[in-house]
């Protein structure tokens, strides 16, 4: 019976602890909820305006999310990722530009997520990496904080740069690769090119979203 009392006492004690500690977390969560939600939206918006200048849209970009059916051009492989996300920018209700969340599947250390902003004319207004696991000092030059390489996509389109020039210099294209790291820039150039291709192929459907 001693064991039973001990079990009862300990369970009660531990239970009280669980309630108190969970309670502390619940209170903190409530107090910080609003700030956190604002921060997330602000960060996302800051990322958007870096690649899509404000004069391209007058709508609530963050809440103009659309889902696109899985397409290898956007890095969705129909396995775990069934849809791709895009954000539509409008001017006075009419389609003006679109920001794609693309995945580059063949990074050196795995998939790389990036945003590619394309305007109505099929020109890339900007592109930024969202998340990556590339090697610091080598592949991580795709990060805008480490180098300006990602700006080499600004204002490029299939009219200003032929399709077969959308490769790294080593493969006969126009884009710089990094000394000591070719796989990473190659994967990104391909991802941006594929995104542009997707836009070209689906332009009518996208504009009428």
């Amino acid at each position: 019976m001693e064991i039973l009392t001990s079990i009862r006492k300990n369970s009660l004690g531990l239970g009280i602890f669980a309630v108190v500690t969970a309670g502390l977390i619940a209170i903190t969560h409530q107090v910080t909820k609003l700030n956190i939600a604002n921060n997330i939206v602000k960060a996302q918006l800051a990322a958007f305006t870096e690649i899509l200048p404000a004069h391209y849209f007058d709508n609530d970009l963050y809440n103009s999310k659309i889902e696109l059916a899985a397409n290898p051009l956007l890095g969705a492989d129909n396995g775990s990722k069934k849809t791709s996300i895009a954000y539509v920018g409008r001017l006075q209700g009419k389609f003006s530009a679109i920001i794609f969340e693309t995945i580059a599947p063949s990074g050196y250390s795995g998939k790389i997520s990036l945003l590619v902003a394309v305007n109505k004319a099929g020109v890339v207004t900007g592109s930024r990496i969202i998340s990556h696991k590339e090697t610091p000092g080598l592949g991580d030059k795709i990060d805008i904080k480490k180098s300006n390489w990602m700006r080499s996509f600004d204002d490029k389109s299939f009219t200003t740069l032929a399709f077969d020039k959308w490769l790294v210099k080593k493969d006969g294209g126009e884009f710089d690769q990094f000394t000591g790291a070719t796989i990473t820039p190659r994967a990104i150039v391909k991802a941006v090119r594929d995104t542009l291709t997707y836009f070209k192929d689906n332009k009518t459907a996208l504009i009428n979203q």
Partner: protein
Amino acid sequence: MSTTADNATNVAIDTTTDSTTDKETTEASQRNYAEIVYNGIWKNNPALVQLLGLCPLLAVTSTVVNAIGLGLATLVVLVGSNIAVSLIRNYVTDAVRLPAFVMIIASFVTSIELVMQAYTYELYQILGIFIPLIVTNCAILGRADAYAARNPVLPSALDGLMMGLGFMAVLVILGAMRELIGQGTLFTDMSLLFGDMAIGWKLVIFSNYPDVLFAILPPGAFIGLGLLIAAKNYWDAKAKTRFDKLHENDEKVSRRVRVTD
């Protein structure tokens, strides 16, 4: 005076078993505040002597601001958990002691993470997974079990503060070393923690610096930590020789002091 290895082993034993060693009893009855301060910052420094919490230490000390951010978070958790554990120390049975401590620490860390996500969002994004990993920092559970569970609130709080400061000091020194050698700058991105006024704090020590990758990656952190430990041991050895030299003619007096210690 026990050696560095002795301290580390004793603390390791303290956290995993219930055995009471002489060192533990002495520590437990230590209410001398000066002793607590000296212990936390130097003699029993969590990073240089106890060698605890090395995972975050090696991973996030690539710049000073990252080091300060994680150091502050760890410090707040240490003080909070030490106070909480000390408050409940007489009401928790031995059987559920450790689960209760872990629950307290985990809830503190979760709350800190939420606070950082709300008020220092960019730093939160940079430190990433290392904020929740503070829970696994053995220094925190170690202090809770070795000290806070056996001492009243005020000494426990001070102990947590001093251990946290000692840990943060090592983080910041290592961060400064690695940032200086790795990037040639100091105080880059301090605005992440201190707001816009800190943008001007960045010091470019070497301009046009070719980044030394080794210092930025974990191996550089290991070697940096090793150098700091070596430096501290050297200093201690020198201090001991000086002390011994001063007292080499006090044979009889020294023996008596040792007996009544």
